[in-house]
C-alpha cells in the first residue's frame, strides 16, 4: 500500500477536476456529437471556459439549465427540452447526458427518463445515452473512462442488431486514455498504420480540439470518429488500450464482441515504447520501420546527453493517476527521484507503484516539496511552485498561457524525445 490521503478537511488549490470535464472531453472525440450537462447553466459555462482556454478551440457542450423551480417541479422536463432543442437546432449523431452533483443529489433518474424519451420515437437512429458523473467521485480521468464505457455499451446495442460481423484481418480498435493529447493519439495512429494496421479510434481527439475534420464553426464537434466508422469496431481483431483507467472499456468490448484486448499502461520512455514496438512486430509479423529505429537511437542519444542534468534531480509532481504513473516511470529512466507525488483519486494502478502517492490537492504538493528541484503539474500549480521558487513545467490539464497544448506529444520514441526536451528547457 503506497497511497496516503491528505489530512485536511478543506481543499486548498484543487488538483481534482470534476468528472464531467472528462465526460465532455470524451465526447469531443466523436464526430457531430454534443454532451449535455444535467446541471445549472454555470456548470457548463465553467467547463466550456476551462477547456476553451486549454485547447484554444470551441468546445461542444450544452446544459439542461436547471433552476431552483425546475428542481422542485422535476428536472426531467429540462432534460427533454434540452435534447429536443439540440436535435432541432443542430441534428447531432451522438448525445450524452452527463449527470452532475446537482442532478445526482435530487436523484433524477436519467436512465429511466431517457428510456421513456427514446420510446417516443424508436425510428430515431442517433445515439442518446446517460452517464453518471457526480463530482463527489473520481476525477477527470474516471469521468472520461466512464463516458467511454457507457458509449461503447450504447454503440454495441446498435451493432449487435446486425450480427454476425465478419472480422477484418488488419483491423484493430484503439482506446486512448484521457491523459493523451491530440498529438499523442495521432502519433499512436501513425505508428499503428505504419505497421499496416487499420485503426478504429475512440474517442479520437487526433483531429478534434485542434485542426478539425470539418472547417468552420459548429456547436457540435467538428472532429473525432464518425458513427459510421465506429460501428465497425466489432469487426476488429483486437483492441489496444492505452492507460490503466481504460482497461474496463477494453473488457466491455471483449465481453460484448468477443474481441481480446491488450493493455499498455504507458507508451512513454524507452522501455515502455520498446515493449510496444516489439509487441507490434510480433503481432503484425512486420519489421519495425527504419524511421522508428532511427528515432530510438535519437532518444538514447538525448538521454545520454542529458543525463548530467537529470541524474539525481528530485521533482514534485501532481497529476491524474495514469498520467502520474506514466511520467514517474519515465523520470526514473532519466535518473530523477520524486520528492513528492500527489494524485487526484486512488486507483489500483497507483497502489502497485513503489513510490508513495498522496491523494490530495496542489497545496499538499506545495507543502512537501521544499527540496524539489523542478515541479510538474497543471497550470494551477504555478503559483505554488513560484512560492517555493522551483522551476515549473505545466503538464496535464488545464494548461494556460501557452499554445498548442493539444499537439504536445509524449508517446512513442519521438514523443518521449519531445517530452525530455521540454523538461530540460525548464531545468537546465
Amino acid at each position, binding site marked *: 500500500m503506497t497511497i496516503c490521503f491528505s489530512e*485536511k*478537511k*478543506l*481543499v*486548498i*488549490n*484543487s488538483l*481534482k*477536476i*470534476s468528472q*464531467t470535464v472528462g465526460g465532455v472531453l470524451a465526447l469531443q472525440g466523436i464526430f457531430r456529437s454534443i454532451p449535455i450537462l444535467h446541471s*445549472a*447553466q*454555470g*456548470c*457548463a*459555462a*465553467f*467547463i*466550456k*471556459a*476551462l477547456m*476553451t*482556454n486549454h485547447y*484554444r*478551440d*470551441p468546445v461542444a457542450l*450544452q*446544459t*439542461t*439549465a*436547471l*433552476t*431552483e423551480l*425546475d*428542481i422542485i417541479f422535476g428536472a426531467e422536463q429540462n*432534460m427533454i*427540452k*434540452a435534447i*429536443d*432543442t439540440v436535435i432541432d*437546432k443542430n441534428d447531432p449523431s451522438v448525445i450524452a447526458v452527463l449527470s452532475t*452533483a*446537482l442532478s445526482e*443529489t*435530487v436523484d433524477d433518474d436519467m436512465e429511466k427518463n431517457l428510456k421513456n424519451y427514446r420510446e417516443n420515437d424508436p425510428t430515431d437512429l442517433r445515439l442518446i445515452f446517460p452517464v453518471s458523473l*457526480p*463530482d*463527489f*467521485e473520481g476525477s477527470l480521468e474516471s469521468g472520461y473512462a466512464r463516458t467511454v464505457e457507457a458509449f461503447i455499451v450504447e454503440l454495441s446495442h446498435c451493432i449487435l442488431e446486425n450480427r454476425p460481423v465478419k472480422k477484418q484481418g488488419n483491423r484493430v480498435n484503439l482506446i486512448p486514455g484521457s491523459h493523451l493529447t491530440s498529438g499523442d493519439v495521432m502519433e499512436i495512429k501513425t505508428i499503428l498504420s505504419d505497421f499496416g494496421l487499420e485503426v478504429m479510434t475512440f474517442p479520437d481527439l487526433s483531429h478534434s480540439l485542434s485542426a478539425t475534420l470539418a*472547417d*468552420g*464553426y459548429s*456547436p457540435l464537434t*467538428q472532429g473525432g470518429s464518425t458513427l459510421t466508422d465506429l460501428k465497425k469496431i466489432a469487426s476488429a481483431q483486437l483492441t489496444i488500450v492505452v492507460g490503466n483507467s481504460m482497461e474496463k472499456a477494453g473488457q466491455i468490448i471483449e465481453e460484448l464482441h468477443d474481441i481480446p484486448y491488450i493493455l499498455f499502461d504507458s507508451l512513454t520512455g524507452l522501455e515502455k515504447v520498446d515493449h510496444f514496438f516489439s509487441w507490434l512486430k510480433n503481432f503484425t509479423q512486420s519489421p519495425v520501420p527504419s524511421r522508428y529505429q532511427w528515432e530510438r537511437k535519437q532518444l538514447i542519444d538525448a538521454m545520454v546527453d542529458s543525463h548530467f542534468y537529470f541524474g539525481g534531480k528530485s521533482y514534485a509532481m501532481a497529476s491524474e493517476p495514469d498520467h502520474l504513473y506514466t511520467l514517474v516511470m519515465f523520470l526514473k529512466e532519466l535518473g530523477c527521484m520524486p520528492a513528492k507525488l500527489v494524485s487526484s483519486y486512488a486507483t489500483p494502478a497507483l497502489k502497485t507503484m513503489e513510490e508513495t502517492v498522496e491523494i490530495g490537492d496542489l*497545496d499538499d504538493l506545495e507543502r512537501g516539496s521544499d527540496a524539489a528541484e523542478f515541479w510538474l503539474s497543471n*497550470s*494551477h500549480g504555478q*503559483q505554488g511552485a513560484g512560492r517555493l521558487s522551483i522551476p515549473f513545467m505545466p503538464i496535464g490539464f488545464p494548461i*494556460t498561457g501557452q499554445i498548442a497544448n493539444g499537439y504536445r506529444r509524449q508517446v512513442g520514441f519521438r514523443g518521449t524525445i519531445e517530452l525530455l526536451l521540454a523538461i530540460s528547457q525548464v531545468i537546465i
Partner: protein
Amino acid sequence: MKNHMINAFQEPACQHNQAQSGQQGCAPAKPGQSNGGCAFDGAQITLLPIADAAHLVHGPLACGGNSWERRGSLSSGSSLYRYGLTTDLSEQDIIFGGDDKLVKSINEIIQRFQPPAIFVYATCVTALIGVDLDAICHQASKRHAIPIIPVNSPGFSGSKNSGNRLAGQALIDYVIGTEDPPFQTPFDLNFIGEYNIAGEMWDIEDLLKQLGIRLLSRITGDSHFKEVQWAHRAKVNMVVCGRALINVARHMEDKYEIPYFEGSFYGAKQTSYSLRKIARLFGDQRLIDNVAVFTANEEKKIEQALKEARKVLKGKRALLYTGGVKSWSVISALQELGMEVVGVGISKSSQEDIVRIKDLVGEDALLIDSRGARVVLETFKKKQGDILIAGGRNIYVALKERIPFLEINQERDHAYAGYTGFRQMARHLVTALQHPVWKLAKLDPPWKE
C-alpha cells in the same frame, strides 16, 4: 436567503426589474441553448478581487474546482484571493448536511491564513440540502472575531448578472460601513464594479493621482477588505462596469448621501467625460478647472498618437458582442477611431444601455437580441464585418471562421482603459486586422485540384 434575493431583485434602478411583462430579474436560461454563467459565478466575479480575504466555496468540487484562477483581476497586495478554497462535498457530506465540514474548513482557513475576513459562497447543492449558511457564518464569526460573510447566490437561482447583484447585497449587508478610514481627504472617490482586469485600473488611478483625487475604496478590483468596509466615507461614487452593482451605489446614496454616476473609461472621450463628471460631483471649482485643462491636454496628446492607427481603422466594420456598460462605451471608443459599428449584441444589456447604443450606432446597425455563436456569425456575414469584438467565449468561434478578433471581456490579458489603454486598444485593432495570417489561412494548398 429569500430576503436578500427579494431586495436584490426589487432594485428599482435595474431596468430588468421594470413593470414590462411583469418580469422580476433577468430572463432565465433555456435548456439546450444556454451559454451563460450562473449566479454563483457572478457573485464570485464580484467579490473575488477583494484580495486579502479568503473565498471559500461550500459545495461539490465543480463549483470551485472548475472555476478558480480564471479571471484577469490583478492585485498589488495580498494574493490570498488566488487560492482556490472549497469544501469539496462528498456524498456523505451531502447526506449529513455538510455543516461539520464547513465549520472545520473555516477553522483551517483561519489557522493557516489568518485572513481579515472570509466570504463563504453557497452553491446549488448546499442550498438544496438546506444548509443554514447565515447561521453557521454568524456563529463562526463570533467565535473567531472576524467577519465571516455568507454569500447566498447559488447557481440555479439565476444568471451571472443576478449573482453580481446578490454579491453587492452581501457587501451592503455585511461590509460597507463597518470601519472607518485612518484619514479622509476632500477628494475621496470610490469605484464600484471596477475589477482591475489586466491591471487597467492602475492606469486610471494614476490619472486620478495626478489630479489630486484619492481612490478611497475599489469595489472590488485590487482591493483589500478594510477599504470596502470604509467605502461609506467617500464623497463621490462612480459605477464603472454596467449596472450589476447599481444596488451598492444606490444604497450608499440613500444611507450616506453619496452621489453616484455611471461612466466608463473606454476611449479618450469617455475617459475625459468621466474625469470631468467626477470633478463636478466633488463640486470644487479649482478641481473642475484643473480637470478641464488636464483632459484637454491628454486628448491633444492622444490625437497625435492615434494618427497612424486611424488611417488603418477608418471605415472598418466592427461587430461588438459584449454586455453591460461595455456594449455602449466600447462603441463610442471604436467610433473615435473612425470605425463603423455594424452590429451590437444586446442580450446582456439593460434598457438604458440599449437606448445609449441606439443613440450611438444609428439605424443601420443590427442589434442582436439573442445569444449563441451562430447568430453572431450570421450577422457578421450579413453586415460584411471586418472584425469581431467580444468575450473569450467567442474567440475560437471567430478564429475557426478565420475572422479577425479582439477580446474585450474579463478574461483578457490587456489593459484597455484610460488614455494609455485606448492607445493599446487601437494598436491591437490594427494588428488584428492587418495580420498576415488571414491571407495565409485562406490559401488552398497549391496541389489542390
